[in-house]
């Protein structure tokens, strides 16, 4: 069985915040987030071929540590032990482990939430890794790397949605193959044997640091904002990537305002190139709830004609980017 996709279970019940960079889950305008300073998690006491329960726990701990180690984000985690509970049980326990989902033939793993829909506070988040696939914790070239997929799913666990920084091609047999990925939170896996997603990229770091800012993040970074227009109409759903000329960091956002507004935050001060592209490298419903938003994908890749200066602690002048039909 070939597999390429990482999706968020229950993505349809949450939207994304048009005012923010990256993709962060929202409910009634509130961003999904943990209020607890230290989030406790449990590992399912179940092994699969190639990965024991101990291996699972160790790989998950390393994946959690990857997010916790960020100096610009304040989130912390604590392993609370093994459990026989299943992911997806609404039991106030955040449980991660293997589960068999033969019906999800392209889904490596998924995250589900229990949250307060008035405040966005996450009460519980569970992650399953589909045991229909071959897993490894040692970088086996013929198996999926558990730690890499766990880093991605823990991004959802924290409240991040999918990033669109990546390029794919259609496979003749269906699905998509990744040509390049610019974020761990890109929805499609780099494939068997790849351990690249054990390491976070600037888009991931900006997203989680915006959600759980620490270390002077808000004061030391800034943003770019504006709107994307397709003729007279807003280019809703356009994907904008800001490229830092000095650090080469790529951070993305979406034009999700009613008038195509976008805002990308968490950028180091400096001069940026802005690139706009249609959302055509993954299924749109892996980013947004389709019944809420009509996404415009019928336009050409476009660069904003000016370099954009991003100040510290604020945003520069609003930019207006005009795209043309394909």
């Amino acid at each position, binding site marked *: 069985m070939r597999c390429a996709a990482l999706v968020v279970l229950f993505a349809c019940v949450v939207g994304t915040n048009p005012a923010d960079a990256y993709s962060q889950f929202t409910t009634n305008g509130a961003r999904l987030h943990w209020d607890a300073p230290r989030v406790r998690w449990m590992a399912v006491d179940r092994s699969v071929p190639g990965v024991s329960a101990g291996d699972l726990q160790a790989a998950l701990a390393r994946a959690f540590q990857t997010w916790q180690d960020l100096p610009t984000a304040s989130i912390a985690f604590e392993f609370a032990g093994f459990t026989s509970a299943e992911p997806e049980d609404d039991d106030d326990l955040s449980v991660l482990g293997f589960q068999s989902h033969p019906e999800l033939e392209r889904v490596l793993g998924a995250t589900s939430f229990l949250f307060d829909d008035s405040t966005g506070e996450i009460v519980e988040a569970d992650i399953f890794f589909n045991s229909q696939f071959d897993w490894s914790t040692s970088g086996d070239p013929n198996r999926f790397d558990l730690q890499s997929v766990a880093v991605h799913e823990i991004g959802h666990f924290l409240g991040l949605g999918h990033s669109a*920084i990546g390029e794919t091609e259609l496979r003749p047999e269906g699905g998509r193959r990744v*040509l*390049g990925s*610019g974020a761990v939170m890109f929805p499609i896996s780099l*494939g068997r044997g*790849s351990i690249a997603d054990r390491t976070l990229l600037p888009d991931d770091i900006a997203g989680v640091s915006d959600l759980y800012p620490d270390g002077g993040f808000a004061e030391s970074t800034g943003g770019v904002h504006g709107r994307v227009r397709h003729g007279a109409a807003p280019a809703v759903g356009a994907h904008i990537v800001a490229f830092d*000329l000095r650090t080469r960091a*790529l951070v993305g956002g979406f034009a999700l305002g009613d008038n195509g507004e976008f805002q990308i935050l968490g950028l180091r*001060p400096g001069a940026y190139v802005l690139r706009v592209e249609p959302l055509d490298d993954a299924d749109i419903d892996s980013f947004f709830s389709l019944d809420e938003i009509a996404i415009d994908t019928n336009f050409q*890749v476009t660069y904003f004609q000016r370099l954009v200066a991003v100040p510290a602690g604020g945003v520069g002048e609003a930019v207006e980017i005009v795209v043309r039909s394909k």
Partner: protein
Amino acid sequence: MSFDVFVALVLPVTAQTRAPRVNPRVEVSVGAGFASGSDLGDANADLRARDGGTLVLFTTSSKFSSHVPLELRLGFPVSRSWSFEAVGAFSRPELQTSVANDTEGAPTVGVSERIDRYVVDGALIYAFDTPQSRRAVPFVGAGIGWVRQVHEGQSLSEDGVSFRGGGGVKYPLVVRNRGAVRRMGIRADAALIVFSKAVTVGTGPASHLTAVGSLYVAF
């Protein structure tokens, strides 16, 4: 008593046989010129590829455009050949970036922004002739200072360090032994200026070759 008279008589004689005055206390020059563009290097927008390598989303190549610097100098002689100069300069180069090789085939484009650049530095100058000369006086000098770049829209300013090294020639048009203005003339400077730290883009410092013509007045 006789000793005092002797001194009083001798001093005027001595003064008549040597230069009648010391160096000017300060020299002010104002000028404008040309600064070359500066290559800032390439920066690729890379994605992680399946094979562990990279997929280039697009490439960029950046430079500062050539521009016209305006300079104000205050010179303070510290000996017959050495002087200290405080230099203030303003210029408006354009930061230009060419974006190419888009992985989805977008055409090559140039994007840019205007930069307001302010420089204040201090330099030591060595002149190869006396300040009293009525001929062209070549000189060399080097200095270090502070640079601030304000990006278009005024929302972002960045500070860095400037290094200046070069030389030039001063040619006096007026030399007077009395009055507030002791000398006036023209001056030509050529220098290599290097900006480092926060004000650069890309992989290395920005460097400009400059040629500036000035009018100077010494008091």
